[in-house]
């Protein structure tokens, strides 16, 4: 039987761009160039490797996001994923983690899955909680923050490097996995891959397709509210000296002045 893998990928504002908030205090996704979250490339990569090891596998990449989020899907398809699902709906604007997870869970169920693979965190919101919430909603094991992962005999195993210990984990499929940027460099799409991606199917879904009411998501449906967003004042220009042989001593003088020594 074919192993059905769904990879959740997010389209995010470029971190090296001038990221900011829109007037309604949501992340401004219009003014800044977007791309496939780099941390989700690792998820696509692991999906491709797991698929290679399996007798037969099909990889679906899934995103919730605006029209432009198709770029993220295309990138993942050009890396080698087989098909894509794009959930797009004006009512999704301003959806928070709980809402996003609700939509993702419905879309994953719609796709059908044995394994869901996520990135460790999105590079914009960066909560790093979606995979755990998704597992909770789907009622399947969470095997998250893996720096090493493999699938065999209906089981997923992997290594989770935690704060105080490194753990070897194991769970039966179906399961939700997330992988870290230690899991292995993501491949670059080949020219052939880029051409092939253009012909791969992208299914578009809106909230009604997934049986979700508009008031369950979006800014008004959110479980949290941002009341204020202020640009952090630029750090006041510090003192910069050139080392002419006494740089270490000068630095010590500064640290002593600040009472660190």
């Amino acid at each position, binding site marked *: 039987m074919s192993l059905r893998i769904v990879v959740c990928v997010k389209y995010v504002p470029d*971190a*090296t761009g001038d990221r*900011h908030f829109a007037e309604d*205090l949501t992340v401004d996704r219009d003014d800044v160039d977007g791309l496939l979250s780099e*941390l989700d490339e690792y998820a696509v990569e692991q999906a491709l490797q797991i698929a290679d090891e399996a007798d037969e596998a099909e990889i679906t990449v899934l995103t919730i996001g605006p029209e432009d989020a198709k770029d993220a899907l295309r990138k993942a398809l050009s890396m080698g994923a087989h098909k894509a699902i794009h959930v797009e709906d004006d009512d999704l604007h301003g959806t928070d*983690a*709980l809402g996003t997870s609700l939509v993702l869970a419905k879309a994953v169920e719609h796709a059908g899955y044995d394994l869901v693979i996520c990135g*460790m965190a999105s*590079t914009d919101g*960066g*909560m*790093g*909680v979606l995979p*755990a*919430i998704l597992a*909770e909603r789907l009622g399947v*094991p*969470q*095997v*998250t*923050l893996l*720096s090493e992962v493999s699938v065999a005999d209906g089981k997923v195993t992997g290594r989770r490097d935690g*704060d105080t*210990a*490194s*753990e*070897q*984990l*194991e*769970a*039966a499929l179906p*399961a939700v996995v997330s992988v870290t940027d*230690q899991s292995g460099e993501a491949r670059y799409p080949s020219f052939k891959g880029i051409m092939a991606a253009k012909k791969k199917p992208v299914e578009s879904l809106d909230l009604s397709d997934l049986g979700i009411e508009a008031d369950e998501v979006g800014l008004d449906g959110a*479980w*949290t*509210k941002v*009341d*204020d*967003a*202020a*640009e*952090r004042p630029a*750090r006041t220009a*510090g*003192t*910069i*000296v*050139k*080392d002419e042989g006494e*740089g*270490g*001593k*000068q*630095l*010590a003088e*500064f*640290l002593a002045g*600040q009472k*660190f*020594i």
Partner: protein
Amino acid sequence: MAEVLVYVDHVDGAVRKPTLELLTLARRVGDPIAVHLGPGAEEAAKVLGEHGAVKVLAADAPEFGDYLVVPKVDALQAAYEAVSPAAVLVPSSAEGKEIAARLAVRIGSGIITDAVDLEAGDEGPVATQSVFAASFTTKSRVTKGTPVITVKPNSASPEAAPAAGAVEQLAVSFGEQATGTKVVSRTPRESTGRPELTEAAIVVSGGRGVNGAENFPVIEGLADSLGAAVGASRAAVDAGWYPHSSQVGQTGKSVSPQLYIAAGISGAIQHRAGMQTSKTIVAINKDAEAPIFDLVDYGVVGDLFDVVPQLTEEVKTRKG
């Protein structure tokens, strides 16, 4: 006064510092009730009581160690149902965030992660967050259900506030999902004898400029002279010069010490994401154009192999 649940992060009863900070913040919102899972509750209760815990709800079961995350969610949920708190606060470790998030879904509450400050507000606790690589500061609230908020280390100084802190047993029944993900083996991280990276008052980090694992003792020497933790950039970690557990940045640890010293680090946005909220920032880099200098309170343009050893000697001399 309302009660606030505080999830205790500990190693066999040794309470980690972020939990004590959390107790201090919790007292702004209500009376803290600590939730201690796993062994060592009696020992932990002393410290928790000293820092304001009016009560310690404790549960111990093999499931907490043998399975990932979910048993702890079951227990925190049991505490939530027993107490009906005004808020649930959890330290922002990777595991803490996952526990908090799953609890939030179960109890139909919103969740805020990685708060750096917390105040009482008319409509519930207000959390301050630092976003977009710390270039923005936001204030947010949970608007549905009981606020579940995770708070980053070093967001407050732990204050003593003696309270009863008596241990009460918490009855937990594990759900079907609890045993879904088995922890087959666990290798504790070896202690370096240095302060914990996220908790340290001073962090000294090395980057690609350190140019080899064999040179990292230069960084460690400075760190030890200052009683600091050692950090590394991703470039240094990817090169295999220093363990990933020491990586500072977006995909490593986020630190907010009193003093951050970056040596041989350029200051890429992903690195800044993990250190920009440090109180005082110092950099040593031979490239005067390195973006790290935009952040610094004091910068030395020079070769780290000259500057760092000289600084270390000077610190030692001054400290006597």
